[in-house]
């Protein structure tokens, strides 16, 4: 059995670890709330732009645009969104596993957003086309715009024939789902309200082709922005859950060790008493 001193030292060390995990849990909870608000605040824009795009493409089905053009998928690109930091349970591992599986089936390059994804695939010798790391907490739309422009540029120049977005979808604080979706070529979303909106005779200013040329890149940027926000919220959710269970585990360990410590102390006292009694008896 470990000595009382060793036990005390271990309890002390676990207690300080527990304090850290507890603080991280609370910080993650606060950040999660903010991240969730941002996800919700971004929804109206994303929904509306999708609606306008659906209307434009369905009303002008003949329109051509480089971003709508489907090519033989020879070169595939995966835009992977991970966290910059660890200590968030299976969050990074899950998304990396999904992307590794995709790469195994259809090899390609990676545009890494987040340190974890970049490091993981760099170690494995996967081509990292571009990286965006250290984006921080409040991701401005400008970042999504930059990423969007980069990807669109690759696509238009023909460096990639297909671009997929790999990110973690935020379901709730407890559940996050690694997902993938095709970013390019753009598959026009179906009309939202059905036939009703098609009957309205819209005035287009400028003409639909020009509008579409403006709208499509914006649609990509909005989609990336949404994915970034969802991934951020997922990261905080995962971290909160992971740190919560770490705190619980620490508490359990402290209880067990305290029990052993008390037993060890009792044993030592009993031993001492019996020694004294033994000594006293020997004198008689």
């Amino acid at each position, binding site marked *: 059995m470990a000595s009382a001193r060793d036990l005390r030292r271990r309890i002390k060390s676990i207690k300080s670890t527990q304090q850290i995990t507890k603080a991280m849990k609370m910080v993650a909870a606060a950040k999660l709330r903010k991240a969730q608000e*941002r996800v919700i*605040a*971004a929804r*109206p*824009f*994303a929904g*509306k*732009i999708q609606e*306008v795009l659906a*209307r*434009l493409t369905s009303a002008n089905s003949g329109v051509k645009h480089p971003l709508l053009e489907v090519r033989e998928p020879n070169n595939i690109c995966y835009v992977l969104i991970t966290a910059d930091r660890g200590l968030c349970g299976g969050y990074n591992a899950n998304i990396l596993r999904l992307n590794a599986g995709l790469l195994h089936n259809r090899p390609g390059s990676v545009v890494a957003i987040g340190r974890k994804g970049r490091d993981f695939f760099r170690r494995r010798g996967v081509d990292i086309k571009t990286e965006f790391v250290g984006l921080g907490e409040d991701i*401005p*739309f400008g970042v*999504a715009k930059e990423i969007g422009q980069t990807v669109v540029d690759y696509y238009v120049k023909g460096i990639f024939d297909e671009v997929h977005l790999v990110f973690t979808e935020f379901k709730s604080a407890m559940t996050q789902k690694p997902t993938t979706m095709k970013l390019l070529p753009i598959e026009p979303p179906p009309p939202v309200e059905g036939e009703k909106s098609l009957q*309205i*005779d*819209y*005035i*287009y*200013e*400028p003409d639909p082709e*020009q*509008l579409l040329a*403006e*709208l499509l890149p*914006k649609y990509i*940027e*909005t989609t990336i*922005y949404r994915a970034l926000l969802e991934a951020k919220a997922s990261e905080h959710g995962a971290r909160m859950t992971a740190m919560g269970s770490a705190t619980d585990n620490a508490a359990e360990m402290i209880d067990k060790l305290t029990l052993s410590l008390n037993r060890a102390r009792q044993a030592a006292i009993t031993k001492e008493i019996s020694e004294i009694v033994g000594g006293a008896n020997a004198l008689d």
Partner: protein
Amino acid sequence: MADKNIAVEIITPERVVFSEMVDFVVIPGVEGYLGVLPMHAPLVGGLGIGVIKTIKDGKETKLATSGGFVEVNNDKVVILAETAERSEEIDVVRAKAARERAQQRLASRTHDIDVARAELALRRAMARLKAAGAE
């Protein structure tokens, strides 16, 4: 007509900036300013750099914007703007500095500057100043 209003919503990727019933709204379209009164025909258009002006009971609200889209339908105007700043949110000092910089860059016209970019920056700064009422 007087009892008719239009609902104006200005949405940026980050949040809904403005959502109110107004009497009249002026939108900076890519092909020129565009005034919308109740009963306007359905329209989908591009949004340019400029100032969105709404009038409600004779009171004006101005917002600086830098491009996006606008949809008018059924007395509802939805403006999808990349940025939209209310006049009171605008940092006049920064906008003035930005205007100076852009003007200098345009004036010097060395071969390595991006003229189109400087012009856009200048127009954005001017729109901000106009919305803030500093000009």
